[in-house]
């Protein structure tokens, strides 16, 4: 049985979330008062499979610590090996995160995942989160044993050199504790870059997967580039460079990134008849979609495809490792959020001029 703790300062609310996320007989989430957690987790008295940590714990009487502060203390204990390695997931309402953390990246590394409480009353959302928590648990479990990167990610040496990334390999070489190893692998699985999820896979292929009867047939064909490492069932992923190689095997006139939706669709429908072309939303100009909009993802968890040549770059809170895809915003949404300091001013100016010319 997988047992997670939910550290929260509002017991009634915590109880509801714990119930919503538990899966009978397989996965149980138990809420725990912040003070109790603080006293016992760092000392290794509790050995949960993982911890969901609220950010703002100030509603609990006598509680001075914050969620990120408590998480940091646990990480120190894990580093000293006075506490067992387990995942810590930030679990908070979006508004509380904005209020308490905002654009400060200093607690980013402490958490393995960041899950918002918003929308968790929906069953579909609960299932997504459960899947992520199962996956994270599995990664930690595997990272606690004998560790070999290639075995972990399910590739041989040749394919890792083709589809992996040297910078990630260097990061892993520095990870000398299970929680550090696991944290990096989770980042690999969660952030697009070396690996991409099904939404991004479909976007890069220029296909509306929900409207395409042949999508599953195409996925079968892509099986050789599917991630087959630890937690593969909970994090369905594909190797981004594997996709590019697969595309080149079809002898296209251009690399995948340089092909328009029409060109991508035309080539794929030679082999799979029932694939619907991806339609770019009005707010997202361009016809070579490759990334998704960070702004709409943050605000409403909406996935909007972005053609980077017509997208606005977003300066990350901290420098991204080279294996990770850069952040970008869809032009229409960026124009509405001009005051967001993360948006690249040069892109905004350049694309604003371009949009004005186009509308004339």
């Amino acid at each position, binding site marked *: 049985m997988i047992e997670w703790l939910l550290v929260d300062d509002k017991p009634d609310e915590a109880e509801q979330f714990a119930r919503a996320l538990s899966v009978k007989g397989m996965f149980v989430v138990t809420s725990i008062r912040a003070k109790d957690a603080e006293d016992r987790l760092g000392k290794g008295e509790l050995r949960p499979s993982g911890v969901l940590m609220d950010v703002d714990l100030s509603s609990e009487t006598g509680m001075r610590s914050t969620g990120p502060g408590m998480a940091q203390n646990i990480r120190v204990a894990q580093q000293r090996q006075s506490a067992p390695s387990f995942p810590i997931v930030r679990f908070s309402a979006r508004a509380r995160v904005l209020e308490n953390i905002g654009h400060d990246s200093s607690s980013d590394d402490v958490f393995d995942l960041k899950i918002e409480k918003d929308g968790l009353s929906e069953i579909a959302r609960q299932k997504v989160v459960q899947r992520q928590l199962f996956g994270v648990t599995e990664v930690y479990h595997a990272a606690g044993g004998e560790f070999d990167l290639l075995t972990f990610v399910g590739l041989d040496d040749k394919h890792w050199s083709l589809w992996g990334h040297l910078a990630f390999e260097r990061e892993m070489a520095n990870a000398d504790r299970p929680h550090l190893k696991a944290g990096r692998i989770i980042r690999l699985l969660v952030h697009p870059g070396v690996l991409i999820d099904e939404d991004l896979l479909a976007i890069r292929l220029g296909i509306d997967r929900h409207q395409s009867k042949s999508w599953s047939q195409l996925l079968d064909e892509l099986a050789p580039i599917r991630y087959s490492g630890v937690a593969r069932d909970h994090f369905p992923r594909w190797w981004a460079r594997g996709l590019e190689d697969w595309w080149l095997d079809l002898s296209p006139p251009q690399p995948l*990134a*340089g092909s328009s939706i029409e060109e991508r669709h035309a080539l794929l429908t030679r082999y799979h008849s029932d694939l619907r072309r991806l339609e770019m939303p009005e707010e997202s100009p361009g016809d070579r979609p490759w990334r998704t909009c960070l702004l709409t993802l943050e605000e409403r968890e909406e996935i909007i495809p972005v053609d980077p040549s017509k997208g606005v770059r977003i300066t990350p809170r901290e420098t991204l490792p080279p*294996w990770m895809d850069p952040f970008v915003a869809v032009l229409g949404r960026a124009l509405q959020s001009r005051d967001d300091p993360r948006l690249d001013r040069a892109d905004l100016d350049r694309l604003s001029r371009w949009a004005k010319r186009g509308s004339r």
Partner: protein
Amino acid sequence: MSAKFDPQELADLAASLSRVPETESTAQFLLAEAGRFYHQWKSDRLLRADEIPIPLPRKKALFPANCELEASFLSFRFRPGDQEHLPSQADYQVRVEGWLITSSAVYELQDHWRVDTHIEGIALEDGRGVPHEPHPFFHFQRGGHAQDAFANGATFIPSAGAAINGDWRGLFQCPGPRMPALPMDPILAIDFCIGQGDGKVWGRLRNIPEYFDLIERAQKRLWQPFFKALREPAFQRLWLGTFVI
């Protein structure tokens, strides 16, 4: 979209290059020099870089056999012209360094090639006067001043001063041919060098959409009007020089 070359594009190029391990050092160089590029451009409308590290050529069909490659560099001088598609200077020089180690000797090796800018009827910059051989406006040629310096010494073989006996075979190099080349700005030149050296690395870069977009924009800016201008006999003669009757 901007129709003019902007040195900021080199920093944007570096952002993409930094994502591929083989081009990390190229990216670091370009980022470190970004301030200097900006200053050069603002003050002199000139971009100049010496010895940008570029990826090593792939170890395939190299001569001499069994040699090891060590480093590869690109240097350039780029000055725009009155017309965007006809830079007044677009000179690129590539040097590849390597070694051949045998049981009895160590050979330091270099390969040099360049793309030069030259206007027919104008004396060469090094004071050698107006050349007899036709020099297309932009031309590819093997060698260069750096090669002259490398080959100028008693330890260079084959050379008259080398202390070596017996019958040997060697390759020598003539100054020609000077093949007409397309004009390149530094963005296109870096892309060209990477592509010529290692197609696998180049393929990875071209699947980074920001990289692809930069190259596409540079080609549209420089080559589309260049190809269009080539319909004019006067421009053909300007580009190819006295080859054109």
